[in-house]
């Protein structure tokens, strides 16, 4: 399977439904942290450049807050695309956004287990 099909399968998103209104980018709390903006995600898939998307800063900066998913008027849901792009990256090279060795330095007393769990789930395979 090529990457375009793979990202479509993982995300369940049809990028062609996008009408480029930008509501996702208007809603995104991480907009300024991202190099590729939410409304641009679909173009990368349509233009067969999933790798660039997976390699982008955006893949690690998405908060998974679903604001773009909730508000998208076309049911495109770009948040699912970036999540899928990250999955592709993680699977492909065993790339990780977080290694176990980093953890002790990051810990503090109040940190809930939930954060570690979700960080691992999000950043690692």
């Amino acid at each position: 399977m090529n990457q375009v099909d793979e990202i479509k399968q993982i995300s369940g998103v049809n990028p062609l439904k996008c009408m480029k209104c930008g509501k996702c980018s208007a809603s995104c709390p991480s907009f300024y942290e991202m190099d590729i903006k939410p409304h641009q995600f679909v173009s990368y898939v349509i233009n067969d450049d999933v790798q660039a998307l997976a390699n982008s800063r955006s893949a690690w900066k998405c908060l998974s807050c679903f604001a773009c998913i909730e508000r998208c008027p076309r049911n495109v849901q770009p948040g699912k695309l970036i999540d899928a792009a990250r999955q592709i990256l993680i699977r492909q090279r065993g790339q990780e956004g977080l290694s176990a060795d980093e953890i002790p330095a990051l810990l503090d007393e109040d940190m809930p287990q939930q954060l570690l769990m979700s960080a691992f789930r999000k950043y690692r395979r």
Partner: protein
Amino acid sequence: MKYSYFPGCTLRNKAKDLDDYARACAEKLGFFLEELTDWQCCGGVYPLGADEIASKLPSVRALNAAKENGQDLVAVCSACYHVLKRVNDDMANVADIQTRANNYMALPEPYMGETKVLHYLEVLRDVVGFENLKKQVVNPLTGRKIGAYYGCLLLRPSSVMAFDDPENPTILEDFIRALGAEPVIYPYRNECCGGYISIKEKEQAAALCQRITESAAGFQADCLVTACPLCKYNLSNNSELPVVYFTELLAEALGIKEVQE
């Protein structure tokens, strides 16, 4: 009324308060939370990949256990609730996941999403009833101005969560009112605090939290209430405004928790 109860990792640990008060208040209000015997961590994040099964299985096990108990499944933690509910939706509606998960689990009877997943707040709203709850309050929180912080996980995606209006929710406000306090409506109560990234991107998380807490403070909130341990951690780290679990408020109003002067 008895419910199967999924506490989740954090409630057994850092968020003991959330858990203890939830159980104690339930008893007081006439419903019982029976902890599932062998629950496994839900994973904290809904496993998005439609092609992945393994990461969904802990939730399926919990859901199936509740089904076998013949009970609805209650969660208190927003993340657990979110993950359980979404996996359950997959099990009910996504044929591929249904088949593969069941093939793997090889249960005596396939699990097809039969269990009803409820958040503790939904039990308060739909079973106990806020009117009824109001009657049981012994220490009304009169004069307190409390901002509800919903965050992302309870509300979105609304097509699956169907918890409340995703942009204009009211359940926590109604809850606050029932306890005798005044809810503060502020626009960022459903905007993300950046919980997931707070482990590595502290600055970004701080900025997001400030936007929320400053907005709430601007509307005269004297504290924030949440159902999510991660939100509480993140907001507390980045704000002057006290952040409490909704079960703490509940316990206080019901006279279960000692009021600290």
